[in-house]
């Protein structure tokens, strides 16, 4: 099994963080993982991205030419990364900020008002954690409990007061993307 996810959005939306949480959850599960950020001359408000690959065998290139899932938190990242999605790939789209419709019709689209739900969880900046919840609701890349443990381990030591808000944001994301089909698509059956 191997699953590549691209997180794209504005710098400051927590994309690198959400990718880090996913990667950390994979390490907790003893999986192979790589996390690769865009590291151009990025700035707050500019577009940033990271690619997280989780696998059960040694990982090839940390930079991908095809993604199994794309999390697009702003319009430029939808435009940039939609084309990289595999057929039947998953697109998590932040409906709070993106009005445009994706051009692809051969993908699984989940529009979630991530920014609004993040506010509900207590902090606008949790937008990418909401999106991570929606991603995990649709693709069993790692278990939700591993993500919760990863959030506690990453956020906890420095900012224990924020862990509860992160967990709340993650749960809101999970609940916002109920599976259309009877069960969660195991990623092993998606694309290897």
């Amino acid at each position, binding site marked *: 099994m191997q699953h590549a996810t691209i997180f794209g959005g504005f710098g400051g939306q927590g994309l690198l963080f959400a990718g*880090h949480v996913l*990667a*950390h959850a994979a*390490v907790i599960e*003893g999986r*192979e*993982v*790589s*996390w*690769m*950020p865009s*590291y*151009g*001359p990025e700035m707050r408000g500019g577009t940033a991205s990271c690619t997280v690959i989780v696998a059960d065998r*040694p*990982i*090839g*290139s*940390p*930079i991908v*030419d095809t993604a199994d899932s794309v999390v697009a938190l702003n319009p430029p990242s939808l435009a940039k990364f939609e084309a990289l999605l595999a057929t039947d790939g998953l697109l998590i789209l932040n409906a709070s900020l993106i009005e445009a419709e994706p051009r692809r019709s051969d993908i699984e689209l989940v529009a979630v008002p991530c920014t609004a739900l993040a506010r509900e969880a207590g902090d606008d900046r949790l937008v990418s954690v909401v999106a991570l919840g929606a991603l995990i609701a649709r693709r069993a890349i790692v278990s939700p409990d591993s993500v919760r443990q990863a959030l506690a381990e990453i956020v906890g030591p420095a900012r224990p007061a924020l862990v509860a808000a992160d967990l709340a944001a993650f749960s809101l994301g999970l609940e916002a993307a109920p599976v259309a089909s009877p069960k969660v698509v195991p990623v092993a059956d998606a694309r290897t």
Partner: protein
Amino acid sequence: MTVETTARPVLMKGNEAMAEAAIQAGCDAYFGYPITPQAELLEWMARRMPELGRAFVQAESELGAINMALGAAATGARVLVSSSSPGISLMAEAMSYMAGSELPMVLINVMRGGPGLGSIAPSQSDYFQATKGHGHGDYRVPVLAPSSIAEAVDLVAEAFAMAERYRTPVMILADGVMGQAMEPVVPIYRMPPREPAGWELTGADGRPPRILRSLHLQPEDLEAHNQKLQAKYAVISEREVRWAGERLEDAEIVVVAYGTAARVARTAIERAREAGLRAGIFRPITLWPFPSRDLAALAPRLRAIVVVELSAGQMVEDVRLAVEGRTPVFFHGRTGGMVPTPAEVVAVMERARDATSAAASDTAVLR
């Protein structure tokens, strides 16, 4: 090599993992100057080295940093310097002096696109610089190229061991992906034992003075010194060659690649095998000494070799020298910070297969 699997892996950024590996290897002193994409390495050392009571200096320039390293190395300290491509060019003079004075040091180059200030994106366009030169004079420097962050951690410890074993600078040649990506690292490190050196400058109180220098004005003296250096390089070439292979047993087409290019190649050979092409990887870990003999031994039973680099074609010259025309060599490279895609590599492999399937197997050396 100490690798136990009891500790849970931790997710570490390449730059930070290499920095911590150097600390755990007993690095006494670090000198640097910030540059992307290796900045986190310097930042990690800035925080950790003072905590441990060791020396950290952010110098006024790359020239300052490398010459401080030269001075510290002369006292027998275990020394690390890191930078990225343009910074390494500035350090070239001192590299030559250190090789001439036989001073151990580990130098990490997290390569970015060139020439000139270039870009900060990943590149492998410093292969020539790392393996054929940097500075002036007849000298060589062992060059180790990690292809994963876990391997980078191992190679940092190995680099310190080699530097002291042979009294030479050793370079780790990484690239922006190896510096910026995070991967799991088992947090068990290796510290090479410290051997009494006998050449280091510790003050001559109660003993005859020692002299470390690269200046030998008498041609006879300098030639003798050069012969001694060359004898050392011959030993390194004999003993320190490292490479790794994947799926070579039945391979008809082999990709030769190092570092991040080898990671791209891994994805590519999986796809090629799914498409019925028997593909494998030959991955040099030491770029100097280059694994010429082992590649030459493998070459005759291959239909073709495909070299993949994040450059316009540098290591490919060593590959061609190694196989001496016995096997057609194809090349695919991207430059400027562009990373080849697995699809591109598969396409070149298919082209190599097609070009060598008919009567086209004479002296085909295509680019």
